[in-house]
C-alpha cells in the first residue's frame, strides 16, 4: 500500500469521524443539560436526510444550500419533541425517559416509512464528479467540503458555548442544574434549547452524510447512533472535546487502521511461514467491532472516558 492510498483512506476516516462527531456532540448536549439519553438520536439524523432530499428535489436547490433549512427544521422538531415528549415526563423516572426515546425510534421510522415509503433514496451533489488530485489518487470534492463544514460548525458551537450568555447558561445547567436554577437560569428553557441544538447537529450530520453519496432509507439511523453512543462514552459523558477526539479516533480506526492491520497480517503470514498463520484472514468486516473494542479498552483503562470526570 502506497502513501497516496493511506492519505486517501485517512480522508475517508475523517469523513466518517465528522458524522460521528456531529451526532455525538448533539447527544452529549442533550445528555449534559437534561440528563436524558435520547436513543432516537439516529432517527433525527434520518429525518433530516428526508427533509434534505425532498427540499432539494422539490425546489431543485443545491443540496448544500438545503443544509441550513434542514438544520432549522430539525431544531424545531427537536424543540417539539422536548416540549411534547420529554418535558412532561422529566423527573418521573429514568425508565419513562428511556421508553419514550425507544418509542420515538419506532414512531419516527414508521412515520417516515408511511409518508415517504421504504425505498432507498440518494441525493446527487452538484460536485459529484469533481475531485482534488493527490498524486495518483483522487479525493472527492464533496468529502473535503463536508470535512470543512464540520470544522466550521464545531468552531461556531465552541464560540456559542463559551462566548455567549446563552451558551454559558447551558454549560452552567449542564454542570449543576440546581445551582443554575438558583442563579436565575431558566433550566427548562435550557432543556428546550439543548434538545433543539442537539437535533440541529444531528440534522447537519444527516444532511452532510447523504450528500456524500450514500443511499438511505427509514432504518438508516440506528447504526450511526450506536457509534455516536460509543463516541460519547469513549470521549467522556458531557465532554465536547472528548466527543471530537473519540469521533476522529473511531473514524480513523475503522478505516486506515483496519487496512494497515490487514496488510500487516498478510505480510506477517507470508513472511513468517513457519507460524502457519492463515494469510487470507480479513479484518475489514470488523469495522463495527473495532468501535466497541476501543470502547472496552477505554472503559477498562479510564472508565470515565478520555475527557470525562470521575463520578460522571
Amino acid at each position: 500500500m502506497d502513501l497516496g492510498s493511506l492519505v486517501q483512506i485517512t480522508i475517508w476516516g475523517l469523513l466518517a469521524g465528522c458524522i460521528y462527531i456531529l451526532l455525538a456532540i448533539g447527544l452529549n448536549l442533550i445528555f449534559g443539560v437534561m440528563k436524558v439519553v435520547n436513543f432516537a438520536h439516529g432517527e433525527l439524523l434520518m429525518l433530516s436526510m428526508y427533509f434534505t432530499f425532498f427540499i432539494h428535489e422539490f425546489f431543485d436547490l443545491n443540496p448544500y444550500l438545503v443544509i441550513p433549512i434542514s438544520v432549522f427544521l430539525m431544531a424545531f422538531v427537536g424543540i417539539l419533541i422536548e416540549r411534547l415528549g420529554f418535558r412532561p415526563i422529566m423527573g418521573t423516572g429514568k425508565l419513562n425517559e428511556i421508553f419514550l426515546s425507544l418509542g420515538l425510534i419506532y414512531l419516527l421510522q414508521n412515520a417516515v416509512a408511511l409518508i415517504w415509503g421504504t425505498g432507498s433514496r440518494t441525493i446527487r451533489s452538484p460536485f459529484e464528479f469533481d475531485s482534488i488530485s493527490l498524486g495518483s489518487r483522487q479525493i472527492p470534492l464533496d468529502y473535503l467540503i463536508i470535512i470543512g463544514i464540520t470544522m466550521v460548525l464545531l468552531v461556531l458551537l465552541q464560540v456559542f458555548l463559551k462566548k455567549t450568555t446563552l451558551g454559558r447558561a447551558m454549560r452552567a445547567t449542564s454542570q449543576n442544574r440546581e445551582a443554575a436554577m438558583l442563579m436565575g437560569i431558566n433550566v427548562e428553557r435550557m432543556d428546550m434549547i439543548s434538545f433543539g441544538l442537539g437535533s440541529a447537529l444531528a440534522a447537519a450530520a444527516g444532511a452532510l452524510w447523504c450528500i456524500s453519496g450514500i443511499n438511505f432509507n427509514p432504518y438508516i439511523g440506528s447504526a450511526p447512533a450506536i457509534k455516536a453512543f460509543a463516541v460519547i462514552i469513549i470521549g467522556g459523558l458531557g465532554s465536547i472535546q472528548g466527543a471530537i477526539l473519540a469521533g476522529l479516533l473511531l473514524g480513523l480506526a475503522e478505516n486506515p487502521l483496519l487496512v494497515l492491520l490487514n496488510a500487516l497480517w498478510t505480510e506477517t503470514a507470508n513472511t513468517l511461514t513457519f507460524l502457519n498463520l492463515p494469510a487470507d484472514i480479513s479484518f475489514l468486516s470488523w469495522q463495527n467491532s473495532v468501535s466497541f473494542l476501543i470502547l472496552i479498552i477505554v472503559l477498562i483503562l479510564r472508565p470515565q472516558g478520555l475527557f470525562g470526570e470521575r463520578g460522571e
Partner: protein
Amino acid sequence: MLSKLDRRFFLTALCVFVLFFLGCTQQSTDTGGGAVERNEIKIGIVAPLTGGMSTTGNDMWQAATLAADEINAQGGVNVNGVMMQIKLVKGDVQSDPQEGVKAVTKLITEDNVDILVGGFSSGTTYADSVVASENKVPFIITGASSSVITRRTDIDTSYFFHHCPTTDDYAEATLLFVDAVVKPLIYQRFNLPSNRKILIGIAYEDSKFGEGVYSGAQNAIERNNLNMEIVAAEKFKTGETAYQTVLTVLKDAKPDIIYPGAVLNEQSPLVLQGRRDVGMNSLFLSIECNDDPDYYTGVGKWGDYSIQESRFGPYAVPDRPVYKAAMKFKDDFKARFGSFPSMMGASTYEGVYIAAQAIENAGTLDKAAVRDELDALEMPEFIEAMEGGVISFSDDYRESKFLFYMEQLRWNESLGETRPVIVWPAHLKEADFVLPDWYEPGQ
C-alpha cells in the same frame, strides 16, 4: 383548565396512542385468519412487509395479490370438482430471522395455511423454513437465492421448492458471459496472452446470500473449468454504507472485474464509491435483484457500462415466448400499484400460480399430496423464461431452472439515468457489449 398532572397524562396518552397507531399501521399481519372455510385455499405469503427490506416484501405481496385475484376472477382453483377461492395470508418476517420464525409459525399453527409462497433473504428463510419443514408444509421459495436453502442436510427439505435462481445459477451465467464476451475484448485491446487468467475481485455481504455469491463464483469457475481466478474476496457488513476500505483492498489485488455480492441498497454506493472514491476503472458486475428502478436512480452515471445479470427487469424485456405475458404482468401491476414489479415480485406471482396448479393436480389440500404434485410439476413457462420452456423442479434439490440474460447499463442523457441494454445471449441481444475507453485491466 387542565391541571399540570392532567396535561401530563394527556400528552403521555397521546404519545402512546400515536405510537400505537403508527406502529400498527405498518404491522398488519393478516387478511383474514380465523376458521378455515372449506371453499378456500389459504396461501401464506412469507415476506418482509415491514423493516429495511419492506419495499421488496410489499412488492412480493402485491404480486401475489394480483395472481390470486386473477385466479379467483376465473372462478378459482378446481379441487376435485369443487371450485375454491384463494385467500392470501400475510406472514411478515420483518427482514429478521427470529421474526421470520414467528411469522411462519403463526401462518402454520394459527392461520392453518395450506401452502407457503415467498421467503425473502436467505438468512431469514434459512431460519423460518425450519418451521415449514417440521410441520411438513409445502414452501415455494421465491425470494431467497442461496443454494443452502434447499441443499442443507440438517433438516428435511423435501417440502421446499426453489422457484428463484440460486446464487450458483446466476454466478455461472454471469461468469460464462464474462468468459465468452468480455474476456476476448479485454485481451484484444490490451494484447494479453490468451492463457492469462481473468482476475476477479469479490466484495460480499456477511450473510448466507453474500457467502452464496462467493461460493457460487468459485463453483462456477471450477464446474466450467473457466480460466479465471478470484484474486481477492472481502466481506462487508450487511447494509454497510461505506465500502471504500474494502474496495481499496480489492483494488490493490488488481482484479480485471469486480463481482459484488450485494443487494440494492449496497450495490449502488459500492459502485459509486469504487469508481469515484477509489478510482477503480474496472467493470462492475451486478446480481439480478439489482435490476430495479431504484438501482438505476441510485447508481447514476457511475453505473455506466457496468454489467447486470437478469431474468426479469423493469426496462429491458427480451423478445422471448414469454414476452407478452411478462409485459401484461408489468402493465397490470403498474396500473394497480403504480410501480414496476421487482424480480422477486415476478417469481412470487408465478409462485401463487404454481401453488394453485399443484393443488389442482393433487385434487386435495392434503399437504403431502400437494408436495408430490409439486415434485412432478410440468407447467408451461409463464412470465419468466425457463429451461426447456417449462416450470419444473429438479430431482435433486427441487430447484426450477431459469434462463438468464446479461445487460449492460448505458447512460441516457435525456433521462439522467442509465438504462439496461441486453447484450447476451446472442439470440436475444439488442446491442453488442462495449468495453469502455476508461477500462483498465488488472495485473
